């Protein structure tokens, strides 16, 4: 057994986290910053943070992930990191010449109380930021929230750094896609395009973290939201924010500071969540839903009606990030699967309640936990108490899946051992079809491999 010391009986823990279902804020801020065109993310802390975050993102995307660091030493930790950051800004613009540096803090710089606002201003005042170039920052103390919080914070700071309130509203909307894959961002843009909605989407990591192999490394790939686009978001008619945990803060800021009203939706994963997204696009554009979208939806529903017997009543264990888990759970319930165990390391008071709303009457037995010590160790113990038919989560789930012999679908962050997640969407109706295919393959492959020979099926 790979996890041979995990006991069956759950004992309440008050301090020790084992096999976390989250990581810390800065990596989320780094990922979000990569969704701005020509941006170099910067980690204001010791080297290790930046190195860890770049490594994890590189493994997840199998793509270059460029970011700089203030390379704190003991001295900086005692006397403050201003000198390091100012030096870094000068070096970065000289050597890597980005359009923008997006700084995020770390537990180190937060603990010693570095004032990023003041330091960035000092950099500008000190002429270290060339004309037409930008430096923005966000605070991402690692000891609060999770990687999702860091993403949300950077997205809010992107908005607050560029949005200007205007009386005149332009004929466009903002779309905040949440922490999804480049393929998902691409799909969200495709759907909005088909609905003929003029929009600015931020952040946008498509064509950044799924860059083509061309034989030359493009330091700043062509994708990402541009600064002129960002400067216009304050004048948009409205905002569609996808996923409360990753996108609501930025939408709220735009509402309160620029009077851009917003609608908050779940990530468009599955039939009904995508329906709500399409309906919202139809509402703002006044356009009828094109046949092509309706056909995609119809194909997704067709798979569900054809294969329902394989979904019905299957017990599923999930771990990951709240926005994904909420949308995915609604989809699974529509398939009549039973998300019986759900954990997310990301804190948030509303999560459990929203999950109950989704699972309530159909899966009353469900166990849901998020925040501190809502970890994979607990999830594994629940599974040992009463097994499941399917496990869905990031790559770390494979250790549980192998030990317990459970079919496993990779979804979430990070996925370190397969390709595809960055290229094929799971959002939208097409994404729903991919999810169904992956779930069916996992369940049916398991059956084919383990059923008694007289029960081996040609047709399924």
């Amino acid at each position: 057994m790979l996890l041979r010391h995990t006991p069956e009986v759950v004992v309440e823990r008050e301090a020790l986290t084992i096999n976390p279902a989250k990581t810390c804020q800065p990596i989320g801020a780094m990922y979000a910053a990569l969704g701005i065109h020509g941006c170099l993310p910067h980690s204001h802390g010791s080297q290790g943070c930046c190195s860890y975050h770049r490594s994890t993102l590189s493994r997840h995307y199998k793509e270059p992930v460029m970011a700089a660091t203030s390379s704190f030493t003991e001295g900086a930790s005692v006397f403050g990191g201003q000198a390091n950051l100012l030096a870094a800004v000068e070096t970065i613009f000289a050597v890597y010449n980005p359009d923008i540096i997006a700084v995020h803090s770390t537990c180190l710089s937060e603990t010693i109380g570095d004032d990023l606002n003041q330091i960035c201003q000092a950099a500008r005042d000190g002429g270290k930021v060339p004309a037409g170039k930008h430096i923005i920052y966000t605070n991402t103390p690692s000891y609060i929230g999770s990687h999702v919080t860091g993403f949300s914070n950077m997205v809010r700071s992107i908005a607050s750094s560029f949005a200007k309130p205007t009386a005149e509203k332009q004929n466009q909307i903002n779309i905040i896609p949440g922490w999804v894959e480049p393929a998902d961002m691409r799909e969200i843009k495709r759907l909005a395009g088909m609905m003929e909605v003029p929009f600015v989407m931020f952040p946008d990591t498509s064509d950044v973290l799924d860059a083509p192999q061309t034989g030359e490394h493009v330091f700043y790939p062509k994708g990402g939201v541009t600064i002129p686009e960002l400067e216009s978001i304050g004048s948009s008619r409205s905002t569609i924010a996808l996923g409360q945990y990753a996108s609501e803060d930025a939408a709220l800021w735009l509402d309160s500071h620029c009077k851009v009203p917003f609608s908050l939706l779940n990530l468009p994963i599955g039939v009904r969540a995508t329906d709500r997204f399409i309906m919202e696009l139809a509402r703002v554009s006044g356009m009828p839903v094109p046949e092509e979208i309706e056909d995609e939806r119809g194909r997704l529903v067709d798979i569900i009606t054809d294969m329902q017997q394989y979904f019905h009543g299957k017990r599923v264990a999930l771990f990951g990030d709240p926005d994904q888990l909420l949308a995915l759970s609604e989809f699974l319930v529509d398939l009549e699967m039973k998300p019986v165990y759900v954990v997310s390391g990301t804190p948030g008071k509303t999560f459990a309640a929203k999950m109950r709303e989704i699972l309530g009457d159909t899966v009353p037995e469900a166990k849901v936990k998020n925040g501190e010590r809502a970890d994979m160790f607990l999830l594994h113990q629940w599974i040992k108490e009463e097994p499941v038919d399917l496990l869905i989560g990031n790559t770390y789930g494979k250790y549980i899946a192998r030990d317990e012999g459970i079919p496993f679908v990779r979804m979430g962050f990070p996925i370190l051992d397969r390709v595809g997640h960055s290229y094929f969407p799971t959002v939208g109706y097409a994404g729903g079809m991919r999810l169904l295919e992956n779930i069916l393959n996992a369940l049916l492959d398991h059956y084919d491999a383990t059923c008694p020979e007289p029960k081996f099926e040609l047709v399924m």
Partner: protein
Amino acid sequence: MTPDLEQIKKDMLRQYPPKVAKKREKAMLINDPAYDQQIQANVRTVPGIISQRGCTYAGCKGVVLGPSRDVVNITHGPIGCSFYSWLTRRNQTDPGPDGENYMTYCFSTDMQDSNIVFGGEGKLKQAIQEAYDLFHPRHIAVFSTCPVGLIGDDVHAVAKEMKEKFGDCNVFGFSCEGYKGVSQSAGHHIANNQIFKHVVGRSNEIIEGLFKINMLGEYNIGGDAFVIEDLLRRCGITLVASFSGNSQVDDFERAQNADLNIIMCHRSINYMCDMMEKKFGIPWIKVNFIGAEASAKSLRKIAAYFDDAGLKDRVEMVIAEEMAKVELAIAQIRPRTEGKTAMLFVGGSRAHHYQELFTEMGMKTIAAGYEFAHRDDYEGRKVLPTIKVDADSRNIEELTIEADAERYAPRKTEDELAALDTELQFAGYEGMMPEMGKDTLVIDDISHWESEKLIKELKPDVFCAGIKEKYVVQKSGVPLKQLHSYDYGGPYAGFTGAINFYQDIDRMVNTRVWSLIRPPWKKEPAGITATFVTQ
């Protein structure tokens, strides 16, 4: 047309601000093994430079305890540091069907803001207690992350208290905050110190065996240690403890039983060798099991040390057996790799060791450098006295070791040692530069900017580095071999490992997939022969 290396150096530096250029220049040189040259190493990375380096925590947790399976390693800090060091280093371990193995687990105190404000010692104590209650391990280690030192949590006091409370579980801490030192290297030193203080020699159990050694600085990436262990076993050499591939802390506690310490990665663990020699009288020698020739040489060194005819015969037998296979492989592969070029920028020893393998394939290492090494790793230990200790290094504790009253025992007489020294070079390491070719580039702590320039100018057939560089380099059409993770391949140690490496590199430098990159319409422009034009 030999490339103008001076010019390339200038190109690499041109873009930097003057101060930065001045500093980086000291970290680059054009090698000439005939002359001693001084390189700048183990100094701060310039802020803003995109470096390969990690932090002290990474070095400390990664190097000695990370690869050991019978210890619960608790990271005291926010969740990230434990998460990123969870199963990401490929230290393989074989606990057998029911042995202890905590390496697949990730333990953290997941510090919250309240812990930062009011202190985290209470939570740490509770976490240690919960780990103890859940698993009853014999060893619990605590690793400090950046905030810990700053908010004044005393992990050592906590560890001491819990150790006394448990009685049957050794608990000890590491002040390995990420900001200490200038790279992982500081973490190695801190790890060495604490393991030596709290673990080595804790047990007086006697280990039987004619030829007892410890292996240091071998971390069993991709199963390297499995290969070496097999070689030692076949030669009849007893491995008392390995620091720390496929290892157990239990073994560290008995390590003083060994009569010889052999060290692979000089950078990360030479401190331990010195301290064990001082305290227990165990001599140490540098070995290298990367490369078939090097592996043979290393086995012969051990045999020479014990000076036993039977042992020597067995060693020669094993070498003969293995070299036969190696030569077969080389004969097939070398014609395809001869004359190709490699660059190695990685770690604290691999950038040196792996040149052996490339040489065996007839490939030339045209540029190399370490990520977190010191001058002695480049220039040899002879320069140790001349290295001046800067502020960053001064912060790392230097233990003063005295001979153990009961257990110190010289393994050889002075004369014996002197006689063997020419062949074995006790406590010696030549470093990378003397063994590297003339007119090659040596660059310490290379930056992304510099490596991209190097690749453009010198177009190596393969570039060796880590995951952060992997896709950057490959996007430029040059295959990158990860020498931290071996690209999830390996083992590469010993003789069978060497053959694996030949095959992998052969694949990488000769694969046709790169030829797919250019689309045909970039070759012959389309449309010219159009039969008609769309309206």
